């Protein structure tokens, strides 16, 4: 199967074969990360622009690393340096960049749908690196890669996603993908962060973490934005932590060798206990490594790759 899309904007729209193609392509990419010389000629002469309108360290660095290993030239624009501060519109900024003929533009923006909006304007391929509260496809793909690496098929696996579901682009992308892969997803959080309309996503929702723990193969804790408490969605971080914090005692309640995941950055002691982050079951750092491999695969496929024989 060959890759045929111009952009990667949202997981909801990708079919199972496309998801699997990216994940399969990421496998040889990961091997490269463990080589002494981490450089390929594959994308030499291609340019990748990282356009981050929202601050991000890990995602931007990960995309930049991925593009550089593939041999592409990278340019990173942070919002602080951008001409948006000089009154130029988002559209004009992007048109200006288009005129410099990039091959791939990676976009992170605080508005849901921003990547869709800009993809219509750009001739370059667009990768959505997180748009508002909508989707975060590369995070989802690295999560899937990590899950499959440990568990093989995800069919019938019980996966808990715990925390601020309402505001989470990671949760949305993962729900669509995990449904396609046949996993049993349970979304857990307080009612203010898990409103009734989320039931329409077609997965189980629950306010009670401890009831859902038995049999869980994976627990994914989401980052809790501390300003949610100030906005009145939570009475206190203390009560949140008491009800939904992932502790060692709770991990034991699964009765399994449960994988612990987190998209980062972690608020230790709020959504997850420090000892759990450091435990052997935690794959949080592996997720970061796999992120580079998955992003290499995404860039590679968009640049016209398409077979699984990507390396030498």
């Amino acid at each position, binding site marked *: 199967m060959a890759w045929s899309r111009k952009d990667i904007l949202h997981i909801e729209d990708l079919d199972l074969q496309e998801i699997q193609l990216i994940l399969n392509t990421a496998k040889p990419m990961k091997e490269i990360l463990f080589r002494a010389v981490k450089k390929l000629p594959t994308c030499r002469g291609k340019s990748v622009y990282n356009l981050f309108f929202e601050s991000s360290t890990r995602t931007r660095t990960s995309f930049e690393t991925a593009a550089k290993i593939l041999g592409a030239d990278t340019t990173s624009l942070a919002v602080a340096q951008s001409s948006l501060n000089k009154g130029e*519109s*988002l559209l004009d900024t992007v048109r200006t960049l288009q005129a410099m003929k990039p091959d791939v533009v990676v976009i992170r923006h605080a508005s849901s749908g921003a990547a869709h*909006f800009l993809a219509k304007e750009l001739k370059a391929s667009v990768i959505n690196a997180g748009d*508002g509260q909508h989707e975060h496809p590369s995070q989802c793909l690295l999560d899937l890669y990590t899950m499959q690496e440990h568990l093989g098929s995800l069919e019938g696996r019980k996966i808990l996603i715990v925390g601020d579901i309402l505001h989470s*682009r990671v949760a949305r992308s993962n729900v669509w993908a995990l449904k396609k892969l046949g996993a049993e997803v349970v979304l857990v959080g307080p009612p203010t962060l898990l409103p009734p*309309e989320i039931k*329409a*996503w077609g997965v189980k929702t629950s306010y009670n973490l401890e009831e859902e723990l038995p049999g869980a193969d994976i627990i994914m804790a989401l980052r809790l934005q501390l300003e949610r408490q100030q906005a009145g969605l939570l009475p206190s971080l203390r009560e949140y932590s008491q009800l939904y914090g992932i502790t060692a005692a709770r991990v034991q309640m699964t009765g399994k060798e449960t994988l612990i995941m987190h998209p980062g950055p972690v608020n230790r002691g709020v959504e997850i206990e420090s000892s759990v982050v450091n435990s052997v079951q935690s794959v949080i750092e592996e997720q970061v490594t796999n992120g580079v491999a998955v992003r290499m695969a995404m860039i590679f496929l968009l640049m016209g790759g398409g077979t699984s024989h990507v390396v030498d």
Partner: protein
Amino acid sequence: MWWIKNAHIIDPQQNIPEKGDLLIGEGKVLALKQNFTEDEVRAITKDRPWQEIDGTGKYLFPGLIDVHTHLREPGREDKEEIATGSQAAVKGGFTTILAMPNTTPVLDQKALIEYVINQGKKVNLAKIYPIGAITKGQLGKELVEMAELAAAGAVAFSDDGKGVQSGEIMRLAMEYAKLTGCPIISHCEEETLAKQGVMHRGIVSARLGLKGIPSSSESVMVARDLLLAQENSGKLHLAHISAKESVELIRRAKENGVDVTAEVNPHHLLFTDEIIAQNLYDTSYKVNPPLRTEEDRQALIEGLLDGTLDMLATDHAPHTWEEKANTFGEAPFGISGLETALAAVWKNLVVPGIFSPEVMVRAWSTKPAQRFNLAGGTLKVGEVADVVLFDPEATQLITEEYLVSKGKNTPFLGQSLQGFAEKVWINGQLVWDRKVEGKC
């Protein structure tokens, strides 16, 4: 003098034959009858020359009256001017439009009310009546000088664009407006509930990750204002009703005799929030109040049919292309409606038989004239001749070039609509002729 022959005449105000002739002269409706002979016409017109128009296959109804438009002048002439808004109005079949006061500066003083009236007269197309603000600067704190503004020509008061958050200020506004006889038009929006939302809060917003505006942000204010109007016998008009809960509240209030009227916008009758998922993040569907669900849409249609909702209004909200060419979150709310609303309603609601032409004319001409005490709204003999000759078969592809309004922000761009005003008279003067495109 005009003799329009054999048209399908619609005027819910009077019992008239289905097909008939209408004579216009001296700025008025001179006569209306099934068929005139030349001798009869000569007698009525006292031998002055007339022009004859064959109205076969066409409808003739009183000029439409739009009680909710944003003409943006003064202050945002890049979005719309009174001149371009007036041209758009007559082209769209509207002979009278009410201009909302959320301009820059806000229409909260006599001189500004007079300015809008004078600009309208200079253009001399659609009749333009300004709506004064309820509070100075639309800040929700101090009432405007309502008596003076009404004397200057304001026909209603509204802080449209935002809701009056203080219940006490709203109560006082309804009380004080009794000096003028003008209705208070309420933009029902409870800001802490609506805060930062960009589309209807529901299944679609949860999926698209867009912040939601719950139906309750509208309906709690509808409930408040209805209770206030009941308590103090105020005269209330509710702008752009979008939620089914609001319709039910208004229905009950009317049963209790509250002096309330309400309007609905065509886009809320035609679209639901699903369309934002189908046309991912298309900002031409971003409007406040937001497009809600199919249940809401059905409740609005039912409300208009049973009279709970009294009138149609466009909420014509022109914006520049640059403003709308942005992310869904950052683009402004609003749909430019004057030139497309009639055809969109005709094609999608009248042609399929959901509304009769009579229901449409009652909601878009008769009721607005009655509620806001305006000339027009009927074709009774002796009334001002604000008249539309309507071609139900005319089709038109909507393009940016077609629109004379500066606001090209309509979801109908690129679509073909059906049912357009062929000729429009205001005070007996022909101001729009579709056959001579652009004659204004």
